[in-house]
């Protein structure tokens, strides 16, 4: 007989007049890893908030550990025994691991805390689980994966009954993700329940016992493990992905456009790879160690200890890298809608920004602005006349970032994890935007820690492991990664 840790029954919530959760049903059994694949972002935030705290709801009932904790008649605002692990860690960075696990929890009333005892307790606990985390380490010095482990240990110590893991594959590497999955399974055997939220069904298939598909705050289907087949998911994705052009395998031209030759930094150990002109290349870092350094080398904030970077047939020095835009190198951050939009500027000013930067920060002339406005009005519609970009939808903001990059006429664009945190519709939109850059002859490099939808658009995949080049795959070998993502 199973025990239901969480049961949400016909839950309906509104926010600013919009329906966030629409007759939402979900039940999670004790010791189960329940997947929640969100086809779009609507309702995801509200759901997590509601699972953590019994906030008012318009209709429905929420049961936690078989007890009615929240219903439409009375919402006590009490917290539930739930821990949330997401991209941003909830640990206190300036405290040690054992402080975070043992001291910062409900019910600790000790005045004198022995660090030695805490560390020893943690050692006993972690050695039993086969985890290598030292209690004395500062949290700030840990990798994202290690922080995840600490958060899990903390949840266990605090007696949490449910752990919500949200979009974690965007922040931990593929290898670490496998370890994390093993750990979650181990914890589930000990009675912990997990709600694994992600945007990609392939990721959920690997770890979950059941999966619920959610769109617009509503459950569309619940799949059991026996139904974890890509064909069962296709109908939900087909509307967005069925009109994608089928890509043919490309043969390498031999022209090296960008190459790293035995580059060494603190994390790189003789990195060597090359990217051909006009291609879209995924740099998949299995351990999530070198991506930041690659970006830092390309934008000039880091100098290689040894080795050389060749770009367009010439050495790409730190001095050149500091004027990357002028040298035809552009960057698109992870979640660019948050970090690459100037909220105080109009749409057009945002769009023209990179041109101004390229012209030694001279303002863009009115005539040129008029031309750009005319040209891009056909592509983005009335958004171009928008004086305030704050009110734009997420796809429009992505349009703005990508069109601005294209307008800067770069030779190569580094798109850092373009699909991270994007829902299905946005991912489809991003595929089109990256396709547009490729059609313009721009070389695209996508440093990533997971494959997600990169394979749909990529021509080449370069695996990086332990700070070195590991392997390279052409498009016709992508079938080897079929279980990792959508491949056309």
């Amino acid at each position: 007989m199973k025990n239901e840790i969480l049961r949400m029954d016909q839950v309906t919530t509104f926010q600013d007049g919009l329906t966030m959760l629409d007759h939402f049903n979900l039940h999670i059994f004790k010791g189960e890893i329940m997947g929640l694949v969100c086809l779009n972002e609507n309702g995801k935030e509200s759901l997590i908030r509601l699972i953590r705290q019994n906030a008012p709801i318009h209709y429905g009932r929420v049961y936690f550990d078989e007890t009615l904790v929240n219903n439409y008649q009375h919402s006590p605002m009490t917290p539930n025994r739930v821990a949330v692990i997401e991209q941003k860690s909830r640990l206190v960075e300036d405290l040690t691991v054992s402080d975070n696990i043992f001291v910062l929890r409900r019910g600790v009333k000790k005045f004198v805390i022995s660090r030695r005892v805490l560390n020893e307790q943690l050692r006993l606990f972690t050695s039993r689980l086969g985890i290598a985390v030292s209690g004395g380490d500062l949290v700030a010095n840990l990798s994202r994966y290690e922080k995840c482990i600490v958060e899990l240990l903390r949840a266990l110590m605090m007696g949490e009954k449910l752990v919500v893991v949200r979009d974690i594959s965007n922040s931990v590497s593929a290898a670490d993700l496998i370890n994390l999955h093993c750990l979650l399974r181990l914890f589930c055997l000990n009675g912990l329940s997990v709600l694994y939220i992600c945007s990609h069904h392939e990721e959920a298939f690997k770890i979950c016992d059941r999966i619920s598909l959610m769109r617009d705050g509503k459950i569309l289907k619940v799949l059991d493990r026996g139904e974890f087949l890509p064909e069962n998911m296709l109908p939900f994705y087909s509307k967005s992905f069925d009109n994608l052009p089928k890509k043919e395998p490309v043969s390498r031209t031999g022209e090296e456009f960008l190459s790293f030759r035995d580059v060494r930094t603190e994390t790189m150990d003789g990195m060597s790879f090359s990217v051909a002109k006009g291609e879209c290349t995924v740099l998949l870092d299995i351990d999530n160690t070198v991506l930041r350094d690659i970006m830092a080398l390309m934008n000039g904030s880091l100098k290689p200890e040894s080795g050389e970077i060749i770009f367009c047939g010439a050495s790409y020095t730190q001095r050149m890298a500091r004027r990357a835009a002028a040298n035809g190198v552009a960057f698109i951050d992870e979640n660019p809608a948050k970090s690459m939009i100037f909220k105080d500027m109009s749409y057009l000013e945002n769009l023209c920004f990179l041109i101004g930067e390229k012209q030694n920060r001279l303002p863009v002339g009115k005539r040129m602005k008029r031309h750009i406005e005319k040209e891009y009005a056909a592509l983005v519609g009335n958004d171009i006349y928008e004086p305030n970009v704050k009110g734009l939808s997420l796809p429009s903001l992505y349009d703005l970032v990508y069109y601005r990059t294209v307008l800067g006429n770069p030779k190569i664009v580094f798109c850092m994890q373009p699909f991270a945190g994007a829902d299905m519709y946005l991912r489809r939109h991003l595929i089109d935007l990256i396709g547009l850059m490729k059609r313009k002859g721009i070389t695209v490099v996508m440093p990533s820690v997971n494959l997600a939808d990169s394979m749909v658009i990529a021509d080449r995949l370069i695996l990086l492991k332990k700070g070195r080049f590991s392997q390279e795959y052409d498009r016709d070998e992508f079938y080897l990664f079929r279980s990792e993502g959508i491949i056309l």
Partner: protein
Amino acid sequence: MKRKKFKYLSSRVTWLIAACAACFLLYLAAWTAVAVREERHMALVLAGFFLFAAAAAVFWRWIRRPYLENSRALRLFCTGYTMNGLFSQRTALSPEMEDAVRKIQEIMNTDKLISATKKQAQYLALQNQINPHFLYNALEGIRGETLSAGLESVAKMTEALSTFFRYTISGSENLVTLEDELANIRNYYIIQRYRFGEKLNLSVEYDADHESEIMSYCLPKLTLQPIVENAIYHGIERIIGEGRLRIKIEVTTRRLIITVSDNGIGMTEERLREINSRLGDMTLDYINPEKESHGGIAVVNVNNRIKLLFGEEYGICMYSTQNVGTDVEITLPLIQKDGRGTYEK
């Protein structure tokens, strides 16, 4: 339509209390000014503020919050979200209002509704039969004849059909065991297999280690058959290729969860929204034969019967996607054979 707020006692009381609070605050402010200027009576002023804060807290906890809860329950009742919410309010506006609500509850006598929904279920199951008893006798006759003629398959079908009729029309009990209900489904499946052949495949999944325990739990009679029938006629019949019908049974410490899934044609979002809205509405309009029906009566009927018997926290929810299939999830309380259950109605 714009409402005149002062028409309502609630508005009048709110304004009156707000005016009193404002006056008291004004008085306190004036008093504070005097006390500060004359540098005395500070303790009294502080006591005044404390009294005001205490009165505000009491007002919030005793009056405002229960009032908001009541308003919400009434609003949800009016919009069709809940029926029990009206009858299970923690506080009443006045003794007369409490009596009035009780009277409404009596008028909506649930026993009559249960019997109406049960009759409706039987009617739906037999609506195409002119005279079930006559048919039942005739079927027995046919079975005898076919057995003597060596037509075993026809005899088997006839037996299934007559057993199905017997289960459907006989007995006045509301609750049956899961074993009996599944046996009826298997009979129904045998009958339908003669029509659909290999196209129709039924599987029943449950924890085999606890089979006897699971099969002994009770549920309202004719809960599954109308849903299975819907799955076949509105889902599987309309597809090309193999139709899979799956009944999955899960037992938790408090609930029995049965999911009937098919890989049929599914339904559009609008249609699903319409049915789910009727599942949530708790109206009994569908019983009225004069009311124009748009299908989905069987599921709504089963859902209402469950809610009336066990309370609003149980019932049916439906997931469906066009060209993918439909899942109907039935949530019931755990009820033993002796009638002991985990529900509080």
